[in-house]
């Protein structure tokens, strides 16, 4: 009896540890890559590119003015929903609303009801008149640097300002308009109303990072925005329908947390879905681990034997080779009939015609025309010829 073949085993030691030792360079590279990605992720806070946002450091942002205000001891707080403003002391807080034109009617009403100071930046649209500024907006085509030309102390302190983008045209006399251009379009409006001040800086470039250092912009911005120790900054985006909240609004309580979009699902659903997503990731790991590699196998080429003939048929078709096709089919039919009737190919044309005409009981001229006649000129003639030829052949092959 022969000794059984030795057992095959996995060579010990070439497991994960050995592979780690061998692939040390790869692991170091992977660690470096992870570190780099982490640094990039942590180092780059998500960029804020919303115009007039206090976090936006691009030319259209308002980060510079917010920092100047903070430097003067004013606390600037930007909120992403109007309801999050939660103003505790309306008397000591300025609510700054950029792009008030995007506010809903309810939001404008809540601003009207709000007892503290309000500053509107940029395009305000339909929010102007309810807030007491009886003016309409008009586009400014040619920017110009103009003087205050009004009584307002802030405007007078600023001196000059460059008026750009949007201006205001007075419809009444309630509001004070400053920095008028030649045609009466002003950049700044202010109205004292029921113990509060509503200011509109229509030409929003006055407070942007790009223009803040020119003319008297900084002075105007700091004086009109920094009247109180607190500034709540809100950039309207049209997606937030919540109302301004302050101590005394609604039920009289200052809401601590307001759900911007109310959730109708039971509490914990979100985190449950999160856990399910993690479990799905684990399931992916489970399924992704292959039970051994695929086994490769050299496969033979697959070429159909009829490829060459099919190619020739396509050439015939493209060239509309009716004559050549008919000649082939006639020759093939003649060969088959000759075999059937015992006429060899060497016997010649006449012998075959005679034999076929006898077998099919047809005139010799007819057989001659079908087998050796002129080539057909088009597809129709070809089809007719071949059907006649088939009929002849079936007569010959009739038992």
């Amino acid at each position, binding site marked *: 009896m022969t000794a059984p073949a030795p057992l095959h085993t996995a060579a010990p030691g070439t497991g994960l540890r050995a592979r780690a030792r061998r692939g040390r360079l790869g692991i170091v590279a992977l660690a470096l890559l992870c570190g780099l990605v982490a640094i990039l992720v942590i180092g780059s806070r998500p960029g804020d590119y919303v115009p007039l946002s206090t976090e936006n450091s691009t030319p259209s942002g308002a980060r510079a003015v917010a920092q100047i205000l903070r430097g003067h001891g004013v606390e600037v707080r930007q909120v992403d929903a109007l309801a999050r403003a939660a103003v505790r002391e309306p008397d000591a807080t300025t609510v700054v609303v950029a792009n008030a034109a995007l506010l809903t009617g309810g939001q404008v009403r809540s601003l009207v009801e709000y007892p503290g100071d309000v500053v509107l930046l940029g395009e305000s649209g339909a929010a102007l008149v309810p807030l007491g500024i009886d003016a309409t907006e008009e586009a400014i085509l040619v920017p110009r640097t103009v003087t205050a030309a009004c009584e307002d102390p802030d405007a007078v302190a600023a001196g000059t300002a460059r008026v750009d983008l949007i201006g205001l045209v007075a419809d009444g006399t309630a509001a004070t308009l400053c920095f008028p251009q030649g045609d009466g379009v002003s950049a700044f409006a202010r109205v004292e109303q029921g113990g509060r001040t509503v200011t509109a800086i229509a030409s929003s470039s006055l407070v942007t990072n790009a223009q803040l250092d020119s003319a008297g912009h900084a002075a105007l911005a700091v004086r009109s925005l920094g009247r109180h120790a607190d500034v709540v900054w809100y950039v309207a985006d049209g997606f937030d329908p919540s109302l301004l909240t302050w101590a005394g609004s609604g039920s009289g309580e200052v809401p601590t947390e307001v759900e911007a979009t109310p959730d109708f699902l039971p509490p914990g659903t979100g985190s449950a879905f999160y856990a399910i997503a993690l*479990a799905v990731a684990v399931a992916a790991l489970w399924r992704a681990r292959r039970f051994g590699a695929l086994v490769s196998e050299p496969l033979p080429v697959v070429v159909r034997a009829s490829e060459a003939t099919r190619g020739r048929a396509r050439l015939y078709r493209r060239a509309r080779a009716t004559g050549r096709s008919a000649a082939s089919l006639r020759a093939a039919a003649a060969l088959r009939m000759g075999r059937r009737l015992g006429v060899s190919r060497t016997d010649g044309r006449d012998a075959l015609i005679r034999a076929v005409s006898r077998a099919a009981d047809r005139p010799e001229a007819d057989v001659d025309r079908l087998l050796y006649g002129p080539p057909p000129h088009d597809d129709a003639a070809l089809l007719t010829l071949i059907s006649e030829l088939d009929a002849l052949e079936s007569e010959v092959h009739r038992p």
Partner: protein
Amino acid sequence: MHITGWTVALAALGVIPAALTESRTTAWAWIIGVGVLALLDVWLAAPTSWVGVRRGTPGSVRLTQSTHATLLVANVGRRRVRGVVRDAWQPSAGATGERHAFALRPGESETFRTSLLPTRRGDRLAGPVTVRTVGPLRLAGRQRSFEAPARLRVLPEFASRRHLPSRLVRLREIDGRTAVRLKGAGSEFDSLREYVVGDDVRAIDWRGTARRGEVVVRTYRPERDRRVVIALDSARLSAARVGEAPRLDASIEAALLLAALASHAGDRVQATAFDRTEQARAASSGSQMVAALADALATVEPSLLEPDWPALVRLVESRVSQRSLVVLLTTVDTSAMDSGLIEAVVALQRKHQVLVGSVEDPELGEMMAGRTDADAIYDAGAASRAMLEREAVATRLRQLGAEVVLALPDDLAPAVCDRYLALKAAGRL
């Protein structure tokens, strides 16, 4: 390393604490906990090097027949090993049920069977064996693949063997075992024996009678010990597919049936497969011939080369010195005119009898009969042209004295054998 479905189930249970605490941190903590448990389980799992395997395969199997390979799994470690092993095979080995779960105490072994149903002729190789061991918590384990070479030889199907009994009956008729032994074509002088009543008087050998002083008759027997050389063309044209299989497979069927028949008839058969060089060779006598030929031809694959016909002629000349029947299983088409086939037949026919067998394509027949529209007529025209060219080559070969058999793939083997029997009956071997 691998994880099991239990790990996923455990991870999914994390939904409950996450929903109750309404916190994503809980979900993360749960997942990390599951991960730590899985890692612990991997650490506790038996090393894969504790598992030894030994493969066993049947020597050979005929195509379309199912068989099984065995895989012995042994625990050569110090502790109990639980896991799964995968017995991987090449796809056309048709392996099913290749995963086997095992739980073995130290020193124990178990043998598993993987059933194989090969779909292609030739040598099918086994892939690596993959071993997974599972830790005590059943959450995760270790995984390794390693080579354990094995080979399964898949012999040609030899579907044409169903034609063998009817051909053997015909052989016996020629043979004379069922008919009166008479001198004639296909028989040769056997011996002289004493005349008994009932013998044909025409068989009396007068010269022998005069010499021996008693009436003796000549007895005859069919020709035996003729040489048959089967040459399979495994070159370019044999790779083309006719129906589902390459032309070469039909040639192999024909070679096997002819070898079976000829060895029953007492002829000496040898076979060769060649393209530019000899790919396979089988020469044996008696009943082992078919088995040897099937084994030799199992691994022959068509090569994309032009056949070297002069080399084949030299090969045949060096193998046989007597007059033989040379069966060329090749492709007769218009390329034979310049590939050297004609010249080879001329050279071989000088001394031997040549039989050329070629596979016809049933698709060409369908194309030739197509009459549905003008495009089909063009197809029919092209197919007719190809047929005429083939007929021209066949006619040329017949003029040279060779026998030509053109047949559909399934009919080639019986047609070649019928022609062999006809030649034998006519005494032309």
